Structures are given as C-alpha cells and as structure tokens.
C-alpha cells in the first residue's frame, strides 16, 4: 500500500495541530471543558504557559476543577496539570504554591505524534495522585522528598547556609561561621579556616571567628506540619531526641546572638540536611545587651540556672528556616554514591611536572576526590602556556606549582592539602625526598629523561615505594603513554635505551622535525593543542586513580590518536606498533595496553626482581 510522502511540519503548525487534537478530545469528553483565557494563563506567573484548558474531574470525594497547561514546546513537552483551587500550600505533597502538580521528572519524554494521548496520560497521572492523597496514601512523600518541601518553606530572609559537616550520626556540636553573605558550618574549626582560606585567599584570620552550633540526627525527615516556626518548636523537637537536649542547652548557655542547628536525616534516596537559626528578639532599644539583660534578669551575672537561660532564650526566639547547600567532600565527589571516593579521600599523590599534562592530571585527581596533593615544578607560567594549561591569564608570571596549588584549592576548597614546591626533581630528591616517600603515589609528568632517570634510580634505591606513574606524549600528542612502575616487574629504564629513547613508540616522523623553536636560545616546544592533549591526560589520570584503587599492577597503557589525525600531521605508525596491533589504529583513536617488560640488560636494575 503506497503511503503519501510525509510533508515537513514546522513547529508552529505542529503546535496548532496538537491544540486542535486536544480540543477535539476534551470537548467531547467533558461538556464543561473550555479553553483558558489569557488572564487565566497569566495567573501562573513565571511559568511561560501559552495555552490551556479548564476541565472538571469527578473524584471519589468531590469534583475538582483542573487546568491543563501547555507551553510552546507542546506536544514535545508534556502538559502541566494544576488544581484551580489548591489546598493550603504544603498540606498536600506534589502541589506547588500556584496549584501546579509535580507529576513527572525533568527527564520525561512525550510522543510528539500523539498529543491527545500525552494529555490523557498527564491527566490520568494527576487524577491518580489526587485520589491517593485524599485517601491518605502519600503522606510519606513529604519525608521521602524532604528537600523539595523544606526548600519551599524556607524563610525569605534566611541566610544562605553551606555545610561541610559529615552527614552521619552522632548528634554533636559543630562550628559555625557567620559571614555577611552566608553561614558556613563544619565539624571543626580547622575545616572552616581551611575552606575560607582556600575559597577566599585574601581573607584574614581575624575574619574567621566561629561559634558553637548543633548537628541533630533526626530519625525521620520532618513533614511540613513539624517544621519549626519558632525557638519553642526547635526546643520541642530536640527534646524528643536522645542526647540532643543536653547539647542544645550547652550551646545556649553562652547566650549567643544567634544559634544554628542543622537537622540531619536519611531517606531512601540519601541524606538530607536542613538548617534552622534561632535568635532571641532584640529589645525595642536594639542593643543585644538589652536582650541579654532580659535573659539574665533577676540573677547575678553567671548565676542564671542553665534551664532558665535556655527557656528564656527559646521563648523569645524566632526560627529562620534555611536550605543547606552541601559542600562536603563526600557530596561533591559522587553525591555520597561513589564508592571510589572513600578509598581516595585520604590518599596523598605527589605530581612532579605541572605543565600542560601534569596540571590536567593534578586537577583531574582533585576533582576525583584525592584529598592531598603535592605539586612539584620549578617553572613559571607564561602566556604561551595558557593555550593548553588548566591555568589561565591570572596565573601568568607565577610558579606553575604554586599557582596550580592555589587554583585547585580555590576550585575545591574542601580539599585537605595542596602543597607546592617550586623546585626541580633533583633538588627535591636531594633535599626533601620524604615528600615522595610519604605519598601513596607519585605521578611524573616531566617527560625529561635526565630527571626521570634520576627519579627511577632513587625509586630503585628505596625498594620502589610508593608506586610511580610516568606519563608522557609522543610528538603532536599523537599518542600518550602511562607506565606504572610498582615494586614488582620492570623499572622505568627497562623500557628505554641508554640514551633515553623509549624502546616502544607508536609513531615515527621520518624527515619531519617535530620540535618547534622559539626565537630564543635552546627554547623548544611541542605544537599540540588542548584538544589533542585531553585524551592522553585522561588516560594518565585514570591510570593514577586505578593505582590508588589498587586496580591492576605494573602496566603500560597508551592512547593512540586516529589515523586521520596522524596523516594531517605527517606522521606514520611504527613497525612495532603495527606488529602489536595487527591493523592500523581506528579512524578516530583507541586505547591499548601492554606489558612493561623487564630488560635483562637494563642499566638501572639489570632486569632483576626486587
């Protein structure tokens, strides 16, 4: 049966056809249904709805009027359904302040060719939700999706609250820093100071004063009815939790101008935090001292019974509810769900060579959650570097290691340590070798034979601990290498000739000079750009991470750029690569792995096992 060729449908026609299709269905299905007026649509401010219908649905308990609302992307986007007369906000789950129902996640797809069924689907979902809410079956949603409801109930003037606290039990005192624009909470002062110093390098120590706060573990997330509205509510909540009351009282004994309590609980989707800051009302004359005197009235200074202090404090306190932004390491690195993070958070990695490769590797490891880095490089950042380095213009003129340290600390202020040493590898090994000995892993991205040869000899002399990952590129970044040297297997020299040439290379450049010169004596560079670099840096970073996670052992991994790229740069595959690989590499690149074999004539280890 021949089918007519399908005409191209433009967006506006499709939208109009979709509206017409829904019109046809809904007017036949509900005699009261009608299109919404522009004023009725405008009622849903900031929603960008363009059209809609009003319909009456008969539920088990009573009839309700619903609006079906679409935007210009309909039917590609599913319609929203709203209760025209919603119940009081936060008395029903999944109902937003303007009555719009939250029915579908952001990932929802809708069938472009079937606007009628898409609309029926949305209405069916809405009617099921309403029936279940009326029957009392959805109360638990307030707890399971606590963060959504709490964020809808935060006070307008609540301070922004950022947390570095561990989210697990127990209920405990924490430290709080009250800044002008946000509050920072953490488990100890060191965390607060380190974070502020990293995040705001120009801040001063005298700006880092902290106060005592409280982290309370709540068995179940609160429902809206239980959200505290004043100090007395907070007192009631903590009184019902084992161990919390005593800590709460202790916190208020010093009569602080304000006190912050973090409520921590757990749902099936993970941990959630909420913040409440209580502060006694100021007197009419405005000075806190007046407030303090009200709280201590009738007693000599320091003699007010604790219980009375607490009662007077909370009875006169308002409670500001605030959302908590988690900025702790476990949240940032995997939202509590990356099992690798727990293994690397306390690891120390020393990176020797902070150029375009080392910089990316250091940044990548920090982003993966490695807790401590030690960066070693004697060079300065120049303008030419920033075209392919993680560091930018604001770092030009500074030492690579030092600038990279500051850059990483500012990007990840929760990181435990990022030390720097603006010296050569030889100087390091001579003066402070413990920087390497005390690390869990060393990554060398120097690509300098003299330095790496020396490093290798040092490594052999120390029993080859810790492991070292050597990373380098071939000309034009046409291939990248990551070699893992452990205390078993070959040493680095085993894979190099006496003069320092790798015995296994992927590319060769006969008749082509791969080294470019600057108009200065002895100054050379490799003409690869940032894009060619990425895959090799990822390979080296992944290999380093694998070693930290104890995945695999001594090995040699390679990233090989595609045939297409090699041809444009004038290179060719080496015979040893073709023999290993069988065919030429894929058009767009590939990864390969081989053994880093022992060499019986190695000048460094003579091919002997440790």
């Amino acid at each position, binding site marked *: *049966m021949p*089918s007519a060729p399908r005409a191209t449908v433009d967006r506006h026609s499709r939208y109009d056809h979709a509206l017409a299709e829904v019109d*046809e*269905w809904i007017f*036949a*299905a*509900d*005699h009261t249904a009608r299109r919404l007026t522009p004023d009725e649509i405008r009622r849903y401010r900031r929603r960008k709805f363009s059209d809609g219908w009003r*319909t*009456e*649905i*008969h*539920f*088990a308990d009573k009839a309700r009027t619903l609006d079906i609302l679409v935007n210009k992307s309909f039917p590609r986007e*599913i319609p929203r359904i709203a209760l025209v007369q919603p119940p009081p906000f936060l008395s029903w789950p999944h109902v937003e302040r303007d009555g719009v129902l939250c029915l*579908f*996640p952001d*990932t*929802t*797809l*809708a*069938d472009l060719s*079937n606007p*009628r*069924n*898409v609309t*029926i*689907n*949305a*209405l*069916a*979902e809405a*009617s*099921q939700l*309403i*029936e279940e809410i009326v029957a009392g079956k959805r109360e638990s949603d307030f707890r399971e999706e606590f963060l959504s409801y709490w964020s809808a109930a935060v006070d307008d003037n609540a301070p922004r609250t950022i947390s570095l606290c561990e989210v697990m039990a127990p209920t405990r005192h924490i430290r709080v820093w009250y800044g002008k624009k946000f509050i920072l909470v953490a488990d100890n002062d060191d965390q607060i100071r380190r974070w502020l110093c990293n995040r705001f390098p120009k801040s001063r120590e005298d700006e880092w004063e902290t106060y005592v706060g409280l982290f309370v573990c709540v068995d179940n997330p609160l429902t809206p009815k239980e959200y505290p509205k004043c100090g007395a509510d907070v007192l009631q909540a903590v009184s019902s939790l084992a161990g919390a009351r005593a800590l709460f009282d202790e916190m208020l004994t010093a009569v602080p101008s304000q006190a912050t309590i973090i409520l921590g609980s757990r749902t099936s989707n993970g941990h959630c935090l909420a913040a409440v800051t209580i502060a006694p009302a100021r007197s009419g004359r405005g000075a806190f001292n007046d407030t303090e005197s009200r709280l201590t009235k009738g007693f000599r200074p320091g003699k007010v019974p604790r219980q009375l202090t607490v009662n007077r404090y909370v009875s006169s306190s308002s409670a500001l509810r605030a959302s908590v932004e988690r900025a702790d390491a476990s949240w940032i690195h995997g939202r509590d769900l990356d099992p690798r993070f727990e293994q690397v958070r306390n690891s120390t990695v020393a990176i020797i060579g902070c150029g375009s490769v080392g910089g990316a590797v250091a940044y990548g490891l920090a982003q993966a959650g490695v807790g401590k880095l030690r960066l070693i490089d004697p060079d300065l950042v120049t303008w030419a570097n920033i075209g392919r380095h993680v560091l930018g213009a604001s770092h030009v003129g500074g030492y690579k290691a030092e600038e990279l340290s500051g850059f990483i600390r500012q990007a990840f202020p929760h990181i435990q340590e990022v030390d720097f040493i603006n010296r050569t590898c030889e100087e390091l090994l001579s003066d402070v070798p413990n920087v390497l000995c005390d690390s869990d892993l060393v990554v060398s991205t120097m690509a300098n034979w003299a330095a790496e040869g020396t490093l290798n000899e040092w490594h052999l002399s120390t029993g080859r601990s810790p492991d070292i990952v050597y990373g380098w590129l071939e000309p034009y970044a046409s291939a990248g290498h990551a070699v893992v040297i452990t205390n078993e297997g070959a040493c680095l020299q085993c894979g190099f000739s006496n003069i320092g040439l790798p015995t296994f290379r992927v590319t060769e450049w006969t008749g082509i000079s791969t080294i470019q010169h600057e108009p200065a004596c002895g100054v050379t560079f490799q003409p690869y750009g940032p894009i060619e670099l990425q895959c090799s840096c990822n390979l080296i970073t992944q290999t380093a991470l694998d070693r930290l996670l104890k995945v695999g052992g001594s090995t040699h991994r390679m990233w090989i750029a595609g045939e297409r790229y090699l041809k444009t740069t004038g290179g060719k595959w080496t015979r040893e690569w073709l023999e290993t690989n069988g065919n030429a590499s894929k058009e767009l690149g590939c990864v390969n792995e081989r053994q880093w074999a022992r060499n019986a004539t190695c000048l460094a280890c003579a091919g002997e096992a440790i």
Partner: protein
Amino acid sequence: MFNCSEDVVAYHNDKVTLPQKDRDEMRVRRDANRTRLKNGLSKAEKPAPREFKSQGSYAMKTMTQHPEKDYDIDDGVYFDKEKLVGPRGGDMTALEARQMVRDALDDGSFKKAPEALKNCVRVYYDAGYHVDVPVYRRIIEKDIFGTEQEHYELASSDWKRSDARDVTKWFEDENSSQSPDSANGRQLRRMTRDIKKFAKSRSSWGGQILSGFGITKLVTECYKKNSGREDTALYDTMKSMRDRLLINLVVVHPVTPNETITHGADDPKARFLREKLSDALGWLAPLFEYDCTEEKARKCWDKVFSTTYFSERSKAESEKSCLATAAAPAILTSGLLQEAGSSSSVLDAVQKKGGGRYA
C-alpha cells in the same frame, strides 16, 4: 483495506501477547526447576552446571496466551565437556548426560516422572504444562593459529553441534533490523505472535499445523512492515507467507547449516499452514470492498482468529468512557481517566525515565 489497525493492536495486547504476570509466573517456575536441578546434581555428586539459558519462544518473547495457561518453557542447561565424565572415565555419552539431568530433576515429587526424550529432558507439571531442559556441553578447541574457540553440542541421539542461543540472537537481530518501530516488542515480533495465535485458533488444527518455530522463521522471511497500519502489515505478511509456501514448502533452520525445520519437500504441516493462510486471506477479502462497514470488518477479523473480541470491542468502546472517540461521555471521572491511562497506547505516549542521554 478497511482500517482496523487499532483493533488488531488491541487484540494483540489483550489476547495474544503474554501478560507480564504470566511471564513472571513462568520465570518463577523456571527458576524453581533450575534450583531443583542444581540441588539434585549436587546431592548425587554430579557436575554442577556452567550456566542456564532460556531458549525457544520464551527467550524470543513470542509466546502467545493459552486459555488454560499451559505454557511450555525451554530452559537449556550447559556443562563444561571436561566435567561430563562417564562411568568408565571417558566422555559421557549424550544419553548418559540426559539421564543424569533426568535423575537429578526427579526428586520424587512429580506424579509423572521427568523423561529423557530425544533432544531434552521433559519435566511434567500437574497443571498440564511442561519444562523442556535441553542439555548442552561446551567445548574449547584451538584452531590452527592456536587461538581458543568455543562451541556447544546438544545431547541428542548423539552429541550434535548446536546452540539455541544462536536462534534467540538471530531472531532479535531480525526483529531489530526489520521492524519500523521500537515499542511494544516491535512489529515483527507482534506479527509472529499474531500468526502463531492464528495457527492455534482452532483446537482441531493442533498437531496438523506447522510448529511455532517454523512459523517464526517464515515470518522473518516474508514480513511486510507497515509502521502506520498494523492490520495491513498482518494481512500482507500472511499473504506473503502463503505465496512463499506455494513455491516452496521447505523451511530451512535459521542458524544450523544443512538443517530444515520441515521434513522433506512436501511437509504436510507446512502444506496445512498454507491452506489455512489461504482461508484467512479469503475471510478478509470483504475488507477490500468499497462498501465494507466497521461491523463487517470486525466480523472478518473475528473469523480469522475464531473469536468474538473484535465485535465485542466495538460495544465495549461505547460503554466504557472511550476517551479516544467522539462518542465519549460528557463527564470525566478520575476512574475513567485512570482506566484510559492504563491502556498501552496512552502509557507508550510518555516515558518518565528519559532517553538515556546526559551531559
């Protein structure tokens, strides 16, 4: 052709394809059987299986509904060859392997004991259905380059090179590559189910008509896709199968070289299928007449499948709140909405879990 596409889809969804509940039930039975076999082998100190793999129509998801829910599952058991050692130290024969599996499955709880048939061990259940357990051994050999290659052999009259997983993969590949859609099992699979259902529509045809596997192979050969009209796809496919059988009654095995599903050049079951397909095409002829009505068209489809579903559906649509037609009632209730929302066409219109792309 009079458009009954929606009705044909609805018939498939309601009366042909296995409901998920039935599939779940079968999975439970299959798993219980596997546990029984593993325990039986362990108790008798016989080798443990390497793996199990469902096969046949269950694995290809082409099973069709049975009025008494008597479904026959094929669940292959795989052993390493070197573990199947006979009583005298040599390789176990195919018969010995089947007997070993039969003995392990017979824990004394069955009214009719499991039987070692020619190509499998059959476990009989009270409810009338059975589970067939073909027995395979895995063989590793080195080729002339020294590279290890594995293949599988079925315990038949002798060890015969075969692997039913190849059949499952073959069907999945055909279904993916030929079907114009990707929802509801894809169209080629739906056609296979519909025509198998047709082949079982009369109890008198049982035993006379080509097997489900043979029908499956013919559908993949003769399938005529039509993304917009399910009824046309079904009609055209049936016609193409009938025409193909007019030329040649032999149906070759899709993966095993030099094997056929049919027997000989004039297989009576293939011929029977051809005749019934001709009948069905004749019953559908009125749909091409200019004055065909909806009622007449539905009766034709009822005749093909020996049912009253199509005619009754027309009544049911006007009694229920059929929200898709102009005859829908003028009041919307939440019950009607939720019922409409549970139909596959409405459910398929929205996908909450997204398209699997992230950035």
